[in-house]
């Protein structure tokens, strides 16, 4: 650690936690949900980092949560890669959500190990704006690799994991659980600030 690090940069990267909340610049990766942006310390997704989404069950809103972001990224010309999605991404619905399908690539992987490798390659390459993965049984080490790859490639990484994973610690910069009933979002962890105590309503449209 011989490098000189500016204090401002450290604070803005949310690596150093300050007791007094300071006014931080507006996030460059808004989630598309103003209520969620308001409670997150970065006012959006943590940049160049992994976000863990823990839906209570398949289909309880994980796509609704990321669609506005994917639509914004693909419309800006960024590439979005889905690594081993659990179901077929149904193109008409993604299109209706505003996602530019031309910028979406799907990678099929036979084994969880291949899926993690593919996700890491995509993140590290720097040619993807966001990479979405569904690691079922990923250990801390694998997730840390993904997190580091996201930092290297300056990309958004979304890991969708089963709700049971909430008990284990994770290197993700942001962890959001989606409850189905009542439909709400719970921020479990956010780097650079206290997780809000109150859940956010997240009712389907």
């Amino acid at each position, binding site marked *: 650690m011989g490098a000189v690090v500016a204090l401002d940069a450290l604070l803005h990267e949310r690596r150093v936690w300050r007791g007094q909340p300071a006014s931080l610049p507006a996030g460059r990766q808004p989630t598309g949900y103003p209520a969620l942006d308001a409670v997150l310390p970065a006012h959006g997704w943590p940049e160049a980092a992994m976000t863990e989404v823990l839906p209570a069950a398949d289909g309880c809103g994980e796509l609704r949560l990321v669609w506005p972001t994917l639509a914004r990224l693909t419309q800006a010309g960024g590439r979005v890669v889905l690594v081993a999605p659990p179901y077929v991404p149904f193109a008409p619905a993604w299109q209706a959500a505003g996602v530019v399908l031309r910028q979406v690539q799907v990678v099929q992987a036979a084994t969880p190990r291949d899926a993690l490798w593919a996700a890491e390659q995509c993140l590290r*390459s720097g040619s993807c704006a966001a990479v979405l993965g569904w690691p079922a049984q990923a250990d801390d080490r694998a997730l840390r690799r993904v997190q580091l790859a996201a930092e290297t490639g300056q990309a958004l990484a979304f890991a969708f994991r089963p709700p049971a994973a909430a008990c284990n610690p994770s290197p993700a910069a942001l962890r959001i659980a989606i409850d189905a009933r009542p439909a709400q979002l719970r921020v479990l962890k956010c780097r650079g600030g206290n997780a809000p105590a109150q859940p956010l309503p997240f009712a389907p449209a």
Partner: protein
Amino acid sequence: MRWICILLPHLALDGVLRSRADPAAPLVLVGGPAQRRVLLAANPAARARGLRAGQPLAAAQAISRDFVAIDHDPAEAAGWHRFLGAWAYGFSSQVSLQYPGALLVEIGASLSLLGPWPRLEARLRRELTALGFRHRIVAAPQPAAARVLANAHDGLALPGVEAMRRALAQMPVERAGLPREVATACARMGLVRLGQVLALPRESIARRFPAEVLRHLDAVTGDRVPALESYAPPDRFDARIEFGFEVTATPALAFPLKRLTADLAAFLAGRDGGVQRFVLQLEHAGAAATEVPVGLLSTERDAAMLLEMARVRLERVPALAPVQALRLVAHELPAFVPAHRELFDERPQQTLPWPQLRERLRARLGDAAVHGLRSRADHRPERAWQPEDEAGRTPPAAASPRPGWLLARPLPLREAVAAILAGPERIESGWWDGGDVRRDYYRVATAAGPQAWAWRPAGEDGPLMLHGWFA
């Protein structure tokens, strides 16, 4: 300085050496009839042991037994000659392989792009050394003069005709490319330098010597330049490396594979093309060769990338039988279009462009592993999307909402239904193409919370089939 001659004094030996893992080991090329095998060439390590070209093999074995003797194959040497012609074709459109063991390359037109000459010469030497061929380079205004001067010089560059004539005049007669008996006759007449021969009256040369002597001298001085046969690059690449032993492990194939892919890249750069599909053939003793096809989505010619793709595919070949030779065949050599790059990259850390990343993923995960997403104008959910990159017209959005997740095939809905939110929506289509569908779709809220897209056959009252999630 319009022509260069690249003389390859050890073409056959270098061609053999470059396919061997240890080029520094003593090695000789032998030829001649079976009763009297003669050494044709020896590498430096073999010469250090006292082996010389021209020795009978028996005499060489009496001197040292610690060397490898390889049969000289003129066809193989000719193959290397053609390969280097393909390489030189990258520098000039006029390449001639007419003189054995030498390349004649017209560079007058290429100098403004690749020059000045010292830089081009350094590049030629660097690439030839990387390919593993020893060489001598001479640049001169006339091709035949360059060829003759390369017999005695290396690195000579003659800008004008006067300098060329002076240099030619200093050439010894026995190295001037004249027939041996003519050179001997000149020496007996006291003609030592080529300048003395050139100073003779034409009539006396014509009277004393065969007609080709005068033709050769005219070509060398540039008085009458014969047409050269131009090299035309072939439309396929086929290279093969034979091992002296059997290879059983994939890592041992890495070195020959690197050679082959580097040769392929040099060949492609020469004809300004790319490759989209090539085949690696692993030849076994007494069995059919294993073929490993390597397919790329776009044309490529980067040596490092070709090697990586080939290596990853090779690693996926199960249970390798002992391999005796490795062969690389490429038939489809389409035009190469370099990737479009922005002058000011928005993402400076963009280390690996998407096409290369896609090839890397496909190489490890399979050819069909990476695909795009496209929506189609079809009411049937199974046919309303396609795993390919979007092209053409995008259909208008459906009137009613569609789920983000679709199940690959419908399953019975096991979750308890709390409420029906929308439906039925009748989807009835496809009687003309065999994929007949008659279904009533409902958007239902399950008791657990998620909303499902489920159907039952039209007009019936059976159990619901789950077909998607409104995630």
